[in-house]
């Protein structure tokens, strides 16, 4: 006879208690980049909307940046490290594939024996991580989770390739997610299109990142609006209820195009952190949200739509209530 196993009772919902970020010290302006490759400030601003980005130094590894961002998120949330039971690090730029970074991040934060794993969904990684944490809480596997998006894209970027070196930067962002009676993280809408797996890729360990910008742009601006609408519907909100829109910061023109296509309210706070951070892949959404909260553009209780998308191709979106 097949045994019937017992399941664990989980919480009715999960919500975010607070965000934190880490921005590397070194600011790299368009002027500095144009000294190395044939480009200029105006060309970069019109193509991708970036004015400056951060490059991490030798003492700012993916783990270092993860620990700093997570430490800030814990402090903002008022949660003790010892109460965290799950650590998820979303990254596509670990320095090496073994071991995963999450156990070391947990250890350095003083979190003992947490469930800890890395997740690679590229620029959609933070939204995948948030969904995984929320689902772990709802199924009883976790009570308090840390979700971190951290990248050192400059390790994998050819600084002589004008197509990519102007776009990518480094950084980390984190969120503390906890069990709650009233859900503050809506159901995720996620998916992928592996037929386009070469659209953004690093061929092997000695290669740099290559990107078919045109294919990615077309996909992002035409295929993702429907998923954003579905994420709203599943969370029980209308697109007109959205106060804050935080898409992955891939290119300012993609952000602006999405704002037009989604027909958001005119007064919606839209993340445009790419202007000063560049594209930081999985870190971009929590980096942008942390800055928007600190500037007072996002208030406690605001309804935000998050939409991650990138290499894979992968995408994930969900509605959250802002802490």
């Amino acid at each position: 006879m097949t045994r019937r196993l017992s399941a664990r009772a989980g919480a009715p919902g999960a919500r975010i208690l607070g965000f934190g970020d880490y921005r590397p010290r070194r600011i790299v302006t368009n002027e500095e980049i144009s000294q190395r490759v044939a480009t200029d400030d105006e060309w970069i601003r019109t193509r991708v909307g970036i004015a400056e980005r951060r490059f991490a130094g030798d003492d700012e590894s993916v783990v270092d940046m993860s620990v700093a961002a997570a430490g800030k998120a814990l402090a903002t949330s008022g949660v003790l490290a010892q109460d965290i039971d799950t650590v998820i690090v979303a990254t596509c730029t670990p320095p090496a594939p073994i071991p995963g970074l999450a156990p070391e991040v947990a250890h350095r934060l003083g979190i003992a024996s947490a469930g800890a794993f890395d997740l690679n969904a590229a620029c959609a990684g933070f939204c995948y991580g948030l969904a995984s944490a929320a689902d772990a809480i709802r199924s009883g596997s976790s009570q308090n989770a840390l979700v971190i998006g951290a990248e050192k894209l400059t390790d994998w970027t050819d600084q002589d390739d004008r197509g990519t070196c102007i776009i990518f930067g480094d950084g980390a962002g984190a969120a503390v997610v906890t069990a709650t009676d009233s859900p503050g993280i809506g159901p995720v809408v996620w998916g992928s299109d592996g037929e386009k797996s070469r659209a953004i890729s690093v061929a092997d360990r000695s290669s740099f990142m290559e990107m078919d910008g045109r294919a990615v742009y077309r996909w992002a601006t035409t295929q993702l609006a429907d998923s954003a609408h579905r994420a709203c519907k599943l969370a029980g909100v209308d697109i007109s209820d959205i106060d804050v829109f935080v898409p992955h910061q891939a290119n300012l023109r993609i952000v602006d195009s999405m704002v037009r296509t989604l027909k958001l309210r005119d007064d919606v706070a839209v993340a445009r952190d790419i202007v000063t951070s560049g594209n930081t892949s999985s870190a971009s959404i929590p980096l942008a949200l942390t800055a928007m909260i600190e500037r007072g553009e996002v208030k406690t209780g605001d309804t935000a739509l998050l939409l991650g998308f990138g290499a894979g191709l992968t995408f994930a979106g969900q509605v959250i209530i802002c802490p």
Partner: protein
Amino acid sequence: MATTEEIQSGLAEILEEVAGVLPADATPEKSFTEDLDVDSLSMVEIATAVEDKFGVAIPDDELANISTVGDAVSFIEKNQS
């Protein structure tokens, strides 16, 4: 089926909306990148707007072969359903 004139004026409208090109400048011999200062991402936006307006599909490899306004008009003419 749109006539050549209708395609031409429809394309000019899209060019104005997406890339701020004056309709009078959108003549057949003009190159999108060289003469009209339309970059590769704006070309993608123009392509998707053309797809919606004229019901044609312009995959990225076909888009790469379209360099002038005239190329675009004849592509739409040939492929419209």
